[in-house]
C-alpha cells in the first residue's frame, strides 16, 4: 500500500535502485522507452538524488555523518575506523550529510540501518541497538491508549472549519519547520485559494544538522501527525495527503506505515474520512535524498518528478502548489501540535508555556551535553535549563557557544545562555529558534572549524540552481578553509560582502543563510583564538 504511487518516475527509479542495487544506463534506457521519456530527463533525476547510484559498489555500505555534532565528537573515531577498515573491499565508506541521529553522534548507517558509529572490532557483528524499541507516550499526546486515537478529529470535523482555524489562532501556533509562519493564517489562505487539486503535505524531510525532533515525534506519535493532516484536509477541502519522509528515517517509516494501515482498517482514512462521502487518503512518499528537498517548493518539484530545485516565489504553495493547486505544507511538529491543541483546547495549550509564552516545544539537543536527546519543554525555557535537562555539559567542559535553532542560526556566546528559547527572544539575542535544535559547543573545541562546518554543509547540499549559492557558497568555503588550514588571510570583509550577495540574491533559504553562521561568528567572537587566521593573524601557540 505504501508505494501505491507507481505513477511517479521517482518511485520507478527507487524501485530499480532497491531491486538492482543501482540505476544503470540499461535500466534507464528501458525506463525511457516504457515511459516515453527522453534520456536526458532520467539522467537529470538520477544524478540529482543521492539515493540513486550509477553502479552498485561494494556489498556493504557504511555511511558516516560528516556534519555538526558528529564531526565535533567523532573525528578521531571515524579516522580509527577508516584506518582499521582500509584494506577491506567488502565495505565502502561514504561520508554523508547529517543523518538526523545527532543524539548518538558520531552517527552512521550500515546498509541503511542507522545507529551510533560502530567500533571497528564490532563491525561484522554490528547490531544496531534499538534505542527506543518501545514506543514512549509523549507529553503532548492527549490519548491514554490507541482506542482513543483520532477522536479529536471526529469531534472537530462536525464543526465549521472557521472554528478550527480560530482555535489554532487562539493557541498562537507558529510553523515549527523553521520559518515561524502563523499556522492559522496559512490554513486560512489555503482554504480561501481557488483551484484543484488540493493537497495537504506533511514535511518530514528533516535534514538540518542538529535537528531530530520530527523523527522522535514520528516514531512515537505518528497518529498525531496523521490526525493533523486529516484536520488540515477538512479545512482546505483536500482529497489527498502526502507525508514526505526523508529516506534515512527507517524506523519512522515503519511506525508511519503501521499507523496508516491501522487508520485505513479503522475507517479513519478512506471513503468517509473528512465527512460523509468525502474520501481522503495519505500517501507515504520516501524522498530520494538531499537536504534541499525540505524547502517546500523543491519538495513539490520532487513530487512532480523533477530535479528538486526550488521554485521562484510568488506564487506560494498556498495558492499554486502541487500540480498548480492550493497546497497546505506544514512541518511534522506543527501538525502534531494542531492535534494536541484541538484535543486539549487553546487555553490549555497557552497555560503550558512559561509566563506569556504558549505551549510545549520539542527541542533537539546535541553536542557537548551529557545526554543529547529530544526534550519536550514549556515555551520560554532558557538555553541553560535545556542544557541542565540533558545532564549538563559533558567531559568537564564549560559552555563556549551554542546555536539554538539548526545549522542556519548564528552561534551565541555562553553569556547568552539565560535567553528563553522563543522566536522573539532568540532573534533579539542575535540568533533564532529556527527548528528548535540546540547545538552545544564546549570549551576546548575549535569554534572556527564548527562555523566552517556549517557553511560546508550548505555548500554540500546546494541544489546548484542559482549562481550566488552554487558558486558563492563554494568559494566562501574554499577561501575560509585555505585561511584556516593553510595560510592565515584577512578575509573577514570579503566573506561578509559575499554573504550579503548570497543573502540578497539567492533563490531560496539555503543560499541565503549558507555563510551566515561563519560571517556572524567572525563579528560576534572577536577574541576567539581559532578565528584569528580568518583575520590574517597566526593563532598563538599554546
Amino acid at each position, binding site marked *: 500500500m505504501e508505494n501505491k504511487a507507481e505513477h511517479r518516475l521517482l518511485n520507478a527509479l527507487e524501485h530499480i535502485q532497491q531491486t538492482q542495487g543501482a540505476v544503470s*544506463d540499461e535500466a*534507464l*534506457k528501458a525506463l525511457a522507452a516504457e515511459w516515453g521519456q*527522453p*534520456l*536526458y*530527463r*532520467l*539522467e*537529470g533525476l538520477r*544524478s*540529482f538524488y*543521492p539515493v540513486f547510484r550509477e553502479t552498485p559498489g561494494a556489498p556493504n555500505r557504511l555511511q558516516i555523518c560528516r556534519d555538526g555534532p558528529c564531526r565535533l565528537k567523532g573525528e578521531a573515531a571515524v579516522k580509527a575506523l577508516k584506518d582499521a577498515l582500509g584494506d577491506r573491499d567488502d565495505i565502502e565508506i561514504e561520508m554523508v550529510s547529517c543523518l538526523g541521529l545527532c543524539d548518538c553522534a558520531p552517527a552512521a548507517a550500515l546498509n541503511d540501518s542507522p545507529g551510533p558509529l560502530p567500533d571497528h572490532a564490532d563491525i561484522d557483528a554490528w547490531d544496531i541497538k534499538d534505542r527506543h524499541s518501545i514506543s514512549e507516550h509523549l507529553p503532548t499526546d492527549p490519548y491514554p491508549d490507541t482506542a482513543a486515537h483520532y477522536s479529536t478529529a471526529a469531534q472537530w470535523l462536525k464543526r465549521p472549519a472557521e472554528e478550527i482555524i480560530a482555535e489554532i489562532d487562539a493557541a498562537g501556533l507558529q510553523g515549527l519547520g523553521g520559518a515561524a509562519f502563523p499556522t492559522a493564517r496559512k490554513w486560512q489562505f489555503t482554504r480561501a485559494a481557488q483551484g484543484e487539486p488540493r493537497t495537504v503535505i506533511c514535511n518530514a524531510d528533516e535534514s538540518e544538522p542538529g535537528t531530530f525532533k520530527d523523527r522522535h515525534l514520528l516514531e512515537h506519535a505518528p497518529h498525531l501527525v496523521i490526525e493533523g493532516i486529516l484536520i488540515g484536509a477538512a479545512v482546505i477541502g483536500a482529497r489527498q495527503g502526502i507525508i514526505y519522509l526523508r529516506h534515512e528515517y527507517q524506523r519512522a517509516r515503519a511506525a508511519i506505515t503501521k499507523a496508516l494501515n491501522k487508520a485505513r482498517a479503522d475507517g479513519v482514512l478512506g471513503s468517509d474520512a473528512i465527512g460523509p462521502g468525502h474520501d481522503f487518503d495519505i500517501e507515504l512518499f520516501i524522498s530520494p535524498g*538531499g537536504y534541499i528537498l525540505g524547502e517546500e517548493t523543491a519538495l513539490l518539484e520532487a513530487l512532480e518528478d523533477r*530535479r528538486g530545485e526550488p521554485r*521562484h516565489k510568488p506564487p506560494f504553495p498556498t495558492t499554486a502548489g502541487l500540480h498548480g493547486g492550493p497546497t497546505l505544507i506544514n512541518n511534522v511538529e506543527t501538525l502534531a501540535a494542531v492535534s494536541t491543541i484541538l484535543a486539549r483546547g487553546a487555553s490549555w495549550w497557552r497555560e503550558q508555556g512559561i509566563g506569556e509564552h504558549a505551549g510545549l516545544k520539542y527541542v533537539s539537543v546535541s553536542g557537548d551535553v551529557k545526554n543529547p536527546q529530544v526534550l519536550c519543554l514549556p515555551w520560554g525555557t532558557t538555553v541553560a535549563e535545556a542544557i541542565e535537562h540533558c545532564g549538563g555539559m559533558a567531559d568537564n567542559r564549560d559552555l563556549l557557544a551554542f546555536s539554538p535553532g539548526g545549522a542556519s542560526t548564528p552561534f551565541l556566546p555562553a553569556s547568552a545562555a539565560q535567553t528563553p528559547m522563543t522566536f522573539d527572544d532568540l532573534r533579539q539575542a542575535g540568533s533564532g529558534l529556527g527548528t528548535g535544535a540546540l547545538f552545544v559547543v564546549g570549551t576546548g573545541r575549535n569554534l572556527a572549524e564548527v562555523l566552517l562546518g556549517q557553511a560546508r554543509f550548505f*555548500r*554540500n*547540499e*546546494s*541544489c*546548484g*540552481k*542559482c*549562481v*550566488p549559492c*552554487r*558558486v*558563492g*557558497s*563554494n*568559494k566562501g568555503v*574554499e*577561501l575560509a*578553509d*585555505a585561511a584556516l588550514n593553510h595560510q592565515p588571510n584577512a578575509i573577514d570583509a*570579503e566573506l561578509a*560582502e*559575499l554573504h*550579503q*550577495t548570497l*543573502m*540578497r*540574491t*539567492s*533563490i531560496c533559504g539555503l543560499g*541565503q543563510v549558507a555563510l551566515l553562521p561563519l560571517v556572524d561568528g567572525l563579528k560576534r567572537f572577536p577574541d576567539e583564538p581559532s578565528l584569528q587566521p580568518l583575520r590574517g593573524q597566526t593563532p598563538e601557540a599554546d
Partner: protein
Amino acid sequence: MSDVSLTIDGVEVTVPEGTTIWEAAARYGIEIPVLCHDPRLEPVGVCRICAVDVGERTLPAACVRHVEAGMNVITANTEITAHRRILTELMLSDQPEQSRREATTGDDSLYALARELKVSDFPWPDAKSSSNPPRGQDDSSPVIAVDHQACILCDRCVRACDDIQHNDVITRTGKGHSVRIGFDLDVPMAESSCVSCGECVAVCPTGALTHQFLGETS
C-alpha cells in the same frame, strides 16, 4: 487581461498583467542586464544578474517576477551594482584562461558584462587553485566544441534544445557546485542523440558551446 501600473526607476509604466519586470522595463527603454535570460525562451532566473529591488527581504530576478499594481521597482543602485559585480566575479573566477567565444566571434556576454561593470580583480580562489577538479572539455563532436569550464549553467542550451528545436538532448547533470550540462545519459556529445543543429551554440552566452574550428577534431 487587465493592465497593471507600477513605477520602475521613478518612471510610471503601464503593462498588461502577467508581464515580467524585465519585459516591462524593456518596453520603456530601461535595460536590465541579464545572462541566463533570452527573450525567446521561458525565463529561469538563475544567474541573478537581473536582480532588482522591489522593497522585499530579497532581490527577485526581474526576468521571472511578474509586475504587481503599485510596485516600486529599482533596477540599479549601489547595492544592486555591488551584487552584480560579485556575481560576475564569481562566474569569471572559474572561466578558462581564454574564452573561445571571445577569441572567435568576440561576443562573450560574461566578458562583456565584466567590462561594463568594470570587474577587474577576482578575490575568489580561481579554477586553478580550487580543490574542485577541473570540469573538462568534450571535443567528441566534429561540429560543436564543449568546454564545461566555461559553462555558467544558465540553462539556455537546455531550453533551446527542448523548446526551440524539440531535440531533447541536454540536461543539467549532478548537483550543487559540481553540476554540469550533460547529453542524454551523460555521454560524449558525438555519442548522444544530438543532431548538430547548432541551436545551443547560438544561445550560449559564454565559450562553453562554440563551433569547432575547421580541422580541429581528432
